[in-house]
């Protein structure tokens, strides 16, 4: 997929893609950042940090299918917004979890949930996960990123990325088990 993307990177339009995405979707990016931070200055910071992060490694953006690229940048903007918010409010969730146990097992996310009730319950549960863990898992399953790519996208170490994914997936699985038992 990367080589296919690279084949068209020579054009000026491709090299300017990031600025086009920004211009076309700035309202959405701003709304995403502002909804968490409620402050223009911080929302601007979240957006610019997200775009600098994407600019540092364009291969990740080109690895994402064109129709999902806005969603990908949205996740990065949202993640930066949560990081800024956590810093301001002295929340240490990202640091403390690094000392958690890491499960090296395969992350199976294909187990089927049948009832709508269960589905709603799990969506509510996903909402209780930290954004750091949730976004890492989303990058893994929705965009098919490897741990190293998630680490690059979120500006964390590969080990931290692995821990976040493992933690999110295992917590969801654990919750599904509890739902089955009820």
């Amino acid at each position, binding site marked *: 997929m990367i080589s296919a993307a690279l084949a068209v990177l020579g054009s000026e339009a491709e090299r300017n893609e*990031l*600025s086009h995405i920004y211009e076309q979707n700035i309202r959405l990016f*701003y709304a*995403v950042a502002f*909804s968490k931070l409620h402050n223009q200055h911080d929302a601007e910071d979240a957006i610019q940090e997200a775009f600098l992060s994407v600019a540092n490694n364009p291969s990740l953006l080109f690895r994402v299918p064109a129709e999902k690229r806005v969603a990908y940048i949205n996740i990065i903007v949202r993640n930066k917004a949560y990081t800024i918010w956590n810093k301001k409010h002295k929340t240490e969730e990202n640091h403390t979890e690094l000392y958690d146990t890491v499960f090296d097992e395969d992350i199976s996310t294909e187990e089927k949930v049948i009832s709508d009730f269960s589905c709603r319950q799990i969506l509510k549960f996903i909402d209780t996960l930290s954004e750091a863990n949730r976004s890492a898992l989303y990058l893994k399953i929705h965009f098919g990123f490897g741990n190293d790519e998630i680490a690059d996208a979120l500006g964390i170490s590969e080990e931290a990325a692995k821990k976040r994914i493992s933690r999110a997936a295992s917590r*969801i699985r654990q919750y599904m088990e509890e739902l089955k038992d009820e």
Partner: protein
Amino acid sequence: MNKSYSVSDLVSLYYENEFACIEEIPVPGFSLRHKSSMKRAFRKFKKNSQNLYLNSYNIPARRKNRLNRRTIILAIVLAFLALISGCAVAQFLSGNFRGEVYHDNTELFVVDASNSPEFIEYKYNLTEIPEGFSPITEEWFSTPFMVYYLYEKENTRDHIILSQSTKADFGSIHLNTEKGELTDITVNGHNGVCLSIIEDNDNYACIIWDNGDYILEISANMEKEKVLELAEKVEIEK
């Protein structure tokens, strides 16, 4: 309805719902600092995309400027095309900088990228940080070829951005010369250029200079003279 979902579906659905229910809010006029950072991001993306493309075909990223026959013919063709299309591009030279002047911006290049370290071997920084400003730069802003510092004054929009890049990494930069004036400047005896903009009573100045080893760039929402004072206080970090 008994549709079956996987956890993958649900995590994706969660984000779809999240983004779908975000309320649209009016986008404000963004600060100069934001605009400057976004320009930097787009420039970096363009350069990294170009390198990605070149690397994929094992094409050297940069070639030495040589006035060979092909270059001269290309220059004549470009000048002719510019003439017949009515969009003449003026050029200027200032020390080690070359500029291509368009109607709303000037693209600035480094003329001679040789005699510069391949990587950032020693970092430059402000020896004296103006009162009230504090550094807020994240480490990932910087690369082995570029160092980036950001200073902000708390509870205000005042900021100072300082960057240091290898000459090879500098590539080019688009300066908004539609609203600003580009002039020659000297920083501690080194040649450079200065862009100063006054917009809605806000001052903004950006000074770019070649200190012999690296290209340094400092910008702030301050008057040109104050930014020059800051530039003169940039020294090797101890």
